[in-house]
């Protein structure tokens, strides 16, 4: 990538939206060891939309609680501070990027479905692995392609050239991005994650979901999202911009120690959970 292009790209990233004030306040509060559930509840209940989304989600099959949860404080006590931050991040992020045309709106919807499919896949794989932080995997899956949203909304000319190369020459999106931008959505996603001060684990998984074995202390999480991305493509849940399933990193598969006869259960659960949860997050 030419230096001028790179400067232009960095300048675009500087223009990226910041997280909503409520989510920032919540992130600060969660990092404060003195914070109590009622402090967090007060901030959330100030925002009617967030309150409604939170209560819908904690009452959905995603959590599977037997009793109805009717208060924000009850939700916080049940699912914890970190899970709340992840949920709010989840429900806020895609609102930040307005669609500029019917076509890009359609592309964003497909990408949203793909992202949600990957998120559900990461959670399902995490359940099989008995991973302790399923929400964390879910959010990492949901945000893994956030760099593509940046391309769609802030780099529309370049995005169209990428799409043309994918359509015309059958390239994977990553290869077309490398040609047009000199970097990929994973690199752009990392810049966005850093601008938003997202946790290092999340930024790393976003940056390395196509090369998960390079993710150092977060290799397991990167491998889970790498596999979930491929499985969501295999099921054709939404679209990440191309129609092809990229190769699975065999070292990542070996690290997760999954058996191939577990694939049917994982894929079946992904389809079921995607249907369940997509209505709650729209």
């Amino acid at each position, binding site marked *: 990538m030419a230096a001028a292009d790179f400067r232009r790209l960095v300048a675009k990233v500087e223009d990226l939206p910041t997280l909503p004030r409520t989510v920032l306040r919540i992130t600060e509060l969660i990092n404060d060891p003195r914070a109590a559930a009622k402090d967090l509840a007060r901030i959330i209940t100030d925002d009617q939309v967030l309150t409604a989304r939170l209560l819908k989600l904690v009452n959905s099959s995603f959590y599977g609680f037997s009793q109805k949860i009717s208060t924000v404080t009850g939700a916080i006590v049940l699912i914890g501070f970190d899970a709340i931050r992840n949920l709010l991040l989840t429900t806020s992020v895609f609102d930040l990027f307005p669609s500029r045309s019917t076509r890009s709106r359609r592309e964003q919807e*497909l990408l949203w*479905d*793909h992202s949600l*499919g990957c998120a559900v896949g990461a959670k399902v794989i995490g359940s099989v692995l008995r991973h302790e932080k399923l929400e964390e995997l879910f959010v990492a899956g949901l945000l893994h392609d956030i760099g593509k949203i940046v391309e769609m909304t802030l780099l529309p000319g370049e995005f169209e050239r990428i799409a043309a190369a994918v359509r015309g020459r059958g390239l*994977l999106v990553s290869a077309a991005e490398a040609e047009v931008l000199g970097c990929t959505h994973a690199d752009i996603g990392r810049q966005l994650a850093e601008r938003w001060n997202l946790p290092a684990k999340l930024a790393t998984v976003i940056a390395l979901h196509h090369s998960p074995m390079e993710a150092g202390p977060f290799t397991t999480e990167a491998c889970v999202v790498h596999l979930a991305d*491929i*499985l969501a*493509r*295999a*099921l*054709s*849940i*939404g*679209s*990440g911009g*191309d*129609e*092809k*399933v*990229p*190769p*699975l990193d*065999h070292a990542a*598969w070996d690290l997760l120690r999954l058996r*191939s006869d577990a*694939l*049917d259960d994982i*894929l*079946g659960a992904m*389809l079921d959970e995607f249907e369940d949860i997509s209505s709650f997050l729209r």
Partner: protein
Amino acid sequence: MGLLAIDDLKPGMVLAAPVRNHQDQLLLDAGRKVLLKHIQVFKAWGIRRVDVRPGAEDPAAGPPQADPPAAPDESVRRRFADVAGDPLMAAIMLAAGRQLAARHPKTKARHGRS
């Protein structure tokens, strides 16, 4: 031995001609010994016959799979075109094909909006 039905292909047999999928992508080259994982890949791609060299099979290579899997829908196979010869990807393709077909037997690629 010549052309052999895929159900009669056994591990240890040696290919007399390359095996290619419907998109002409190479799955296994001529002269290669067939392993169980190759048979699974061939079945995943809907290969019906292969050309094998005359000679005894290798009994140590193990029996073929008892229940041959059905090849998945064309829309599923098309997505896996770039990873045609990878046994692990073939396993993912077969499992995805089964799950989609089980839920939507008439319109198998229900989510297929890509």
